């Protein structure tokens, strides 16, 4: 029914379960019948045995004091009984013993021990129990003892078991065939969902129709949720690719125009123009290069968290090393960088994305600082948080016990409050500015801070102009 190559099969599972139940019920029935039969057999044998003993005594009492006749008579009675047992194919043994005035006159089975295991006695557990009846007649001084072996071995013999189980065995196909059909029909909706998914094209990520079956709708819902997440993600990647290609076109166009100018005849005679075109070419390449680096950084900052734990790293030392590599650039423009840190924030850090976060924030601060401006970087570890109404910060408010807060303040033009959310969108650039950029810096910073369990927010610097970027890291 379901692919036979599968190591596990729902169908087989259901069928095995069903067969198991049948077997269990049959076994319970068999056990009940066997125990019941054993009890009845014992009781019946006991009462029959008592009646036969009395019958024998009545016969023998007629004879009176003639031991020889009593012996003959007892032997004849035994012979009759044996004949009947043989005809009925009974294998139970019977011992008949007769005494007169204390002397043993007859013993049908002299080979047996004197005392036989009575029903319910401890000895009866090892051997078959015997039903024993004793009758006495005082007038003739006769005592008749009849012992009948209770035979319940038959119940456990092959013929007994097969007799008892035959009904179950014969009904098995009658039970399993309908079960096979019912299970097959019951699993059909599952197969139909599989077929629907199978028949889809790779690009078809629309939702599956809701299943009318209560058991299947969670599966269908889960698949639909996955499909919707996938299609959103593919949509985003598609958009990103389109945007990225589009954003690269602008610097490439600048390169193309300047290359054309450089090669054109009119420029050859004007060294000034030629130098300008060369400079334009360089700038275009620099912009395209920067864009490619930023695109890669953006992609890396997003990469899904890996399974291995992130190394514990001292944030303070890390910030210091990133500032050290950015400082010469700032110095060229006379910008002073200062780092204040009273604490070492040890945190599980994804080093590459943290570097991207810090580098982007620091290079933004340098880029937008005025000549001879000042950039102040602070790192503190405190619990007091002035998040205001910032949703992204409160989302992480319960993420850990301690938190480290990194603040980068510059004296640049700042970002208008209305744009402070907008600037995190990729490729968004604040209008009316002269500095070139990829429009990805803050988008990278946001992703990278998320990856390091941080939340990033923008504020106006306290003393007038400038931007204050705050990154709060939960350090669990």
């Amino acid at each position, binding site marked *: 029914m379901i692919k036979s190559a599968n190591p596990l099969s729902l169908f087989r599972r259901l069928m095995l379960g069903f067969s198991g139940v049948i077997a269990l019920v049959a076994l319970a029935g068999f056990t009940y019948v066997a125990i019941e039969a054993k009890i009845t057999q014992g009781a019946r044998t006991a009462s029959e045995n008592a009646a036969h003993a009395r019958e024998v005594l009545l016969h023998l009492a007629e004879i009176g004091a003639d031991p020889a006749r009593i012996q003959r008579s007892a032997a004849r009675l035994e012979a009759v009984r044996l004949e009947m047992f043989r005809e009925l194919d009974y294998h139970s043994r019977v011992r008949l013993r007769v005494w007169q005035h204390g002397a043993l006159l007859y013993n049908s089975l002299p080979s047996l021990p004197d005392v036989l295991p009575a029903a319910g006695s401890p000895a009866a557990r090892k051997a078959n129990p015997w039903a024993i009846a004793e009758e006495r007649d005082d007038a003739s001084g006769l005592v008749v003892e009849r012992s009948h072996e209770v035979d319940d071995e038959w119940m456990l013999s092959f013929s007994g078991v097969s007799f008892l189980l035959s009904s179950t065995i014969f009904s098995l196909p009658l039970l399993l065939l309908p079960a096979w059909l019912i299970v097959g029909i019951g699993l059909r909706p599952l197969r139909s969902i599989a077929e629907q998914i199978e028949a889809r094209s790779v690009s078809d990520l629309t939702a599956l129709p809701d299943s009318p079956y209560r058991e299947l709708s969670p599966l269908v819902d889960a698949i639909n949720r996955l499909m919707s997440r996938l299609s959103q993600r593919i949509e985003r990647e598609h958009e990103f690719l389109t945007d990225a290609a589009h954003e690269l076109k602008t610097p490439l166009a600048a390169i193309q125009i300047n290359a054309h100018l450089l090669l054109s005849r009119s420029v050859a005679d004007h060294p000034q123009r030629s130098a300008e075109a060369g400079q334009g070419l360089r700038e275009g*390449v*620099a912009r395209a*290069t920067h864009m*490619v*680096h930023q695109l*890669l950084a953006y992609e*890396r900052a997003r990469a899904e968290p890996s399974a291995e734990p992130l190394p514990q790293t001292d944030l303070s*030392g890390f910030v*210091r*090393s990133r*500032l*050290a*590599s950015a*400082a*010469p650039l700032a*110095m060229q423009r006379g910008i*002073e*960088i*200062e*780092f*204040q*840190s009273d604490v070492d924030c040890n945190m599980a850090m994804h*080093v*590459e994305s943290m*570097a991207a976060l810090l580098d982007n924030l620091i290079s933004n601060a340098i880029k937008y600082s005025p000549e001879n401006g000042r950039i102040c*970087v602070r790192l503190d570890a405190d619990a007091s948080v002035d998040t205001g109404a910032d949703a992204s910060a409160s989302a992480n408010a319960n993420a850990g016990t301690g938190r480290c807060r990194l603040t980068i303040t510059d004296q640049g033009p700042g970002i208008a409050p209305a744009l402070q959310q907008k600037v995190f969108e990729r490729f968004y650039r604040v209008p009316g500015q002269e500095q070139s950029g990829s429009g990805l810096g803050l988008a990278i910073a946001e992703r990278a801070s998320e990856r390091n369990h941080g939340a990033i927010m923008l504020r106006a610097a306290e003393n007038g102009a400038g931007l204050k970027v705050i990154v709060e890291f939960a350090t669990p």
Partner: protein
Amino acid sequence: MKILMIEDDLAIGRALLAVFQDEGHAVIWLRMAEGALARLQTEQFDAVLLDLGLPDGDGNVLLKQMRAQGLSLPVLIMTARDSLEDRLNGFNTGADDYLIKPFEIPELLVRLRAIVRRAHGNAEGGWSFGELVLDERRMLVTRAGAPVALSRTEFALLLALVKESGRVLTRAELEQGVLPHSEGQTLDVHISNLRKKIGERLIRTVRGVGYMAQRPHD
């Protein structure tokens, strides 16, 4: 300067060849890793410019072989692989510097000069920095020809800063590398003493971060 360039891309190789010739450097250009080792063993080069993605193998493998054979000349890796892991791997293999494509030509020239200077400075034991000349072996410093008396720690600090001039050395780097047994304020005290002896403006402070030796004209 004589440079061995191992780069398989024709456009980049040709352009770099032109740049180096303009700068007056002698360049041997190989487009494969094969034969590079033999060349390095028979000829004297000042530096190796090494691309990583070569048609007949990884540049890192060649670098490893070079170091294993005791070739200690400076190596500058230039590659498009820009992940942190790649960069660290490059340095661990024994590269002196790592330049990511695409790069600016002036940056390439500056870095190339820097690694060659570092290697030569080490070999001769002498460093010049503005008016200062440092003799690493004899631990002597002269300023405009006149000897300057520095303590052992001050000399070590100055040497570390001068060797990496133009780069900010963090407090941790200086404390661990130069002042392993001093703590806290002493780094600032040493720098302050040093400045009194060699002039205020040669060492720049990046507050809270570290110090940088800066040539007066940089």
